[in-house]
Structure formats: C-alpha cells, structure tokens
C-alpha cells in the first residue's frame, strides 16, 4: 500500500488545518474524507474503511483518543497517525499506546506528511500480513479437520498449495488418520469444488466389479447388467475421483487405470466407444506405496502417475494436544446427538486421553468417546468412564506400519479382520472353568482391547451386532455400580 493511492480520513475540527491536510493529500493522489468531530468520524471510518486516519486529538465532543477506541471496537483497521500541536508529545505517546502508528506535529510540510503516511501504511500492511500468517499457522480447524498441531498445519498448507492444481495427490497414513477427509479437502479447496467428489474404496469392491464401478458398463455387458450404468470416472467428470485403498487394486485393473490416466479416456465395460473425461485423481493407502511397488504388488508406472503430490497424514500420537481438542469436539457432537449432558472432560480424563498412543487414530478416539456418551450421562467425563486400556498408564507402542486396511463401515463379517488369539493366550491365568457369562464378558473385553476399543470391529470379529456389545458394556458397568 505504501506509495500507492490510499483512502485517508482526516479528523480535524479546525477548517484551516483540515484544508491544509486535504490539499496536501489530494496533491499526493490520495482519496480523502473529512470528519470534524469524533462522533462523525467513528461511523464514517466504520463504513468507508479508510487505510489511514489523520486524527487530531483535541476535538469538540469526544476526544481523538476516545474516537480511536470506538473505531477499534467497530473493527476499523486503519493506520492512525495522530496530529498534535508542538507541545502535545505527551498525548501523542498516549495515543501510540492506544494503537496509533505514529504522530505528526503541526505544522507539517508535505514531505513529512508523505513519509509518515507511507510508513504508517506500510506498518499496517505488514501487521495485516503478520496477522494472516499467524492465523494460518495457529488455526485449529480446516475443511472439516480439527487440530492445531504442527504436523496438521503442514497438512493444511499442502492441501491449500496443491488444491488449485490438477496434479494427482497421493495420501498416505495409518487407518483412521483422515485420508478421505484430506481428499475431500483437496476437492473443496480446488476450483473443481462445484463438481462431484466421487470416493471409491478399491479394497471394498469385489475384483470383478471394480472395473464396472470405475468405468461403468453398458446394458448386457455381463450377467446382471440389466441397465447401462455410469461409473465413478464419468460421475466425477469435472470434479475429483478419490481412489481409497489403491494398494488393494488388482493388477489387471491397475493396467486399465494407468491407461485412463495416460489418455483421459476409458471404455465402459461392454462398450466399444471411448469416453473422455476431465477428472482429478486423489488416491490413498495405509501401506507404504513404494514397498508395494518393490514387492511387485503395485505397478511402478502407475505409482509415478499417482504419486505426484504426496500428502502424509500424521498419526494421532504425533499430534500432541490435538487429541484433547478432537475429543472435546466429538464429546459435544455426540452428547448433542444422544441427548446427554456432557460438557467436558475431567482433567484426569484428558490426561489419560493425551497419554494414550491411539493405534487406531481418530477413528479409535471417535469410538471411545461414542462409547462413553452412550454408556454414561453426566456433566463431565471422569477418568473412571474411560476404557481400561487408557487407564493402564500404558502408552502402547505404536505400530511401525498400520497392519490392516481400514475397517468396513458396517459391522458385518469382515474377512480381513485379524482373528483373536487362542483362548489360552487371551486368558493365561484361566485354570478352571468359569461361568459362560463370565467367559463371554472376558472374551468380549479382550476383543475390544484387541481392536483398540473399536466396537464395530470387535463386533465384526465376534460375529455379533455392535449394539450387543454396547448393551453388555452398559449392563456390566451397572453391575459394577
């Protein structure tokens, strides 16, 4: 702004002084307005939003200092230069304490006014830039994410930097770290935001249906193809196609995807006609993609097509105080949803949340908070309401790499879920038979421990509904008093 034409509000009750200031400023090419009282200046500054204000301190009615305070309360961000008499340095110092940028003793030559104003405008521009940078560095929410930690600030910056481009984004991170949320954020921050965001979990779709899911099919293409159906690539035309669990994609489909990425066109299953679309690809995996290439499970040429802008989602254990920030947010949301009174966590409970290693990341935290809200009703979440594993004081060793793909959203039988270890390992001290109900209790708790308190996953392993686990937990807590 310094050097360029600026909007300058003159607050001056003496016509001669005002006329001098107006003439000099106009001569410098600035746009000017005049207020002769503080009462007149405050609403004018709030409405006109000047870049700078030349403020006489001694005004009829409210003083220049009071006018400055009222302007600040109104959100006026102009650089204020106070105009003082030769003996008025004391009041100028007070004005600077109140936020004025500089002072100008009367009478002032044009050169002095010009320099003071240019400096004031430059300071204002710098302060405004600094504030913007600070707010970007300290933001605790971004496109659906909650987190103010340094690793998340890096994620936000990467998303912002890459959003405007068409470049493919490859998101890596353990299960539950928010890879899909990141993909959506890339889409929402991009110029494609008004078009579709289509997410496809490559690991959740049977191999023989994947091609049809991605590229669509024509009627009669295969048994059961009773209608022509658009695939994800066509649906995402002009928008973003998110291929989650890309590492699960079978080799024959990897070839077809590569061709699509190279040409921008595809043939729906059963069709001989190529279709061209404009799609931005965002893919994700919880595995190490290069290790998959080296192991021969993922095509190297496809890797280079997809791995253009890498985005690594940090695990929750590396996000410091984000754990508590997210837990508070989830508690408020779930409490409102379930009609509970919860308003916050007791300090001991927050300390336990912060000390735990969260191998299942945000998804695990989500489940823990959901469990608490479902099973209890109080003003505050006490430490005793937390799952035992959080209270063991054990910060569990985090897995070097996430062992399993993301769980299916519906708690049905999930063949890839790890099976529980044998009973003798689960209950090493079990020498005698125990009542079946007790065995069920222990086994269910062991299953929950095994999957980091993820109720739907435990339910899937045990082959029961999640609601059964919730009911049992509630009953056991009631019995325990």
């Amino acid at each position, binding site marked *: 702004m310094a050097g360029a034409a600026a909007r300058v509000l003159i607050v001056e009750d003496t016509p001669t002084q005002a*006329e*001098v200031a107006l003439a*000099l400023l106009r001569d410098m090419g600035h746009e000017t307005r005049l207020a002769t009282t503080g009462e007149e200046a405050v609403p004018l500054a709030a409405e006109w939003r000047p870049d700078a204000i030349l403020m006489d301190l*001694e005004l009829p009615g409210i003083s220049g200092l009071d006018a400055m305070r009222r302007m600040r309360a109104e959100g006026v961000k102009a650089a204020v230069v106070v105009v003082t008499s030769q003996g008025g340095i004391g009041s100028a110092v007070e004005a600077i304490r109140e936020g004025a940028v500089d002072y100008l003793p009367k009478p002032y030559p044009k050169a002095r006014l010009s320099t003071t104003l240019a400096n004031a405008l430059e300071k204002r521009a710098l302060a405004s830039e600094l504030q913007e940078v600070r707010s970007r560095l300290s933001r605790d929410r971004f496109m659906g994410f909650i987190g103010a930690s340094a690793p998340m600030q890096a994620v936000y910056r990467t998303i912002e930097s890459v959003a405007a481009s068409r470049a493919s984004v490859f998101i890596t991170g353990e299960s539950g770290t928010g890879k899909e949320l990141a993909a959506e954020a890339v889409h929402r921050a991009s110029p494609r935001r008004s078009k579709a965001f289509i997410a496809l979990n490559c690991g959740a779709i049977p191999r023989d249906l994947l091609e049809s899911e991605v590229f669509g099919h024509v009627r009669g293409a295969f048994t059961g193809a009773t209608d022509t159906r658009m695939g994800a690539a066509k649906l995402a035309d002009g928008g973003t196609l998110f291929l989650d669990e890309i590492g699960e994609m079978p080799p024959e489909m990897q070839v077809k995807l590569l061709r699509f990425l190279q040409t921008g066109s595809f043939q729906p299953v059963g069709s001989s006609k190529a279709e061209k679309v404009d799609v931005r690809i965002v893919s994700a995996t919880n595995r190490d993609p290069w290790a998959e290439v080296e192991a021969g499970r993922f095509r190297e040429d496809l890797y280079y097509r997809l791995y253009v802008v890498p985005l690594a989602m940090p695990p929750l254990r590396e996000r410091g105080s984000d754990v508590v920030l997210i837990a508070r947010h989830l508690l408020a949301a779930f409490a409102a949803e379930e009609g509970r009174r919860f308003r916050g966590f007791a300090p001991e409970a927050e300390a336990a949340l912060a000390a735990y290693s969260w191998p299942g990341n945000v998804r695990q935290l989500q489940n823990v908070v959901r469990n608490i809200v479902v099973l209890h009703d109080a003003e505050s979440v006490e430490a005793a309401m937390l799952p035992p594993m959080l209270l063991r004081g054990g910060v569990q060793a985090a897995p070097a790499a996430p062992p399993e793909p993301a769980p299916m959203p519906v708690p049905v039988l999930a063949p890839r879920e790890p099976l529980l270890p044998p009973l003798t390992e689960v209950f090493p001290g079990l020498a005698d038979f125990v009542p079946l109900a007790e065995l069920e209790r222990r086994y269910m708790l062991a299953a929950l421990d095994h999957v980091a308190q993820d109720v739907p996953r435990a339910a899937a392993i045990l082959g029961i509904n999640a609601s059964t686990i919730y009911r049992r937990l509630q009953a056991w807590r009631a019995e325990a008093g």
Partner: protein
Amino acid sequence: MTVVQGVQPYVDETRLWCDRCPVSAIDPDIAGQLAADLSAADFVRILKTFEADLGRLSAELEAAAGAGRLEEYRRLAHSLAGAAAAVGARRLEQVARIAMDRGNGNDPALLAVRVRQEARAALAELDALTAARQAGAG
C-alpha cells in the same frame, strides 16, 4: 496598545504571557513551505479559509470571554492555535495557546483582544505573501 518589538515581552497590561516572541506575525519558513508544497490556487484557498476561521473564531472568543464561558473560550483558543499553526502565524498561535492554558493568570477579555490584534497582523502579512506569490505566478 504596546507595539510588539522583536524579542521584547508582550504587553504589560495582560501580564507577561510570552517571554520571547517572533518579530514577524508569520513564520516565513512555514508559510513559504506551504506555498511551495501547494499550487497557487490551493494556497490562496487555504489563506481564505484561514481568514474566515480567524474572523469567526476571534469574534466568538471575545464573546465567550465577555460572557465568562471559559470552557468554550479555551476550546475556541485551541481552534485558533491550530489554524494559526497551519499557516505559520506563530505569534497568534502563541497567544492562543496562552489563552488555552487554564493557569495563565491573564484576563480572558484582554487576551481575546490581543488575539484579535495578532490575527489582524497575521492576515496583513499573509495578504502581502499572497500578493507576492500571485505576482510571482503571474
């Protein structure tokens, strides 16, 4: 009324309000700088504004002093000081600043008269300056 003499004290009848005052009513550095910074038209307009300010403010000052409205008197003196400072009317500015000072010990009515006299002196010098500038421009 005592004629102002260079660095001599001001008038006796209103006690000493100024130890050392400028010889001229107008500070040529300030007025000259203003004339140099602005176009002739702007400079003339400012002097006309100043003249109007002085006419109005000095009359109001005398009325406020006569009626004993001292707050108004001081506020008007402040405005006069500001106007005078803008064009380099240093003697007028100094007298007006004395009038602004609550503890100056001078009779407000006498000071108001002095203000009017200084205003006239300043205007006379400014008229001469304007004429010279217009002649120079012409």
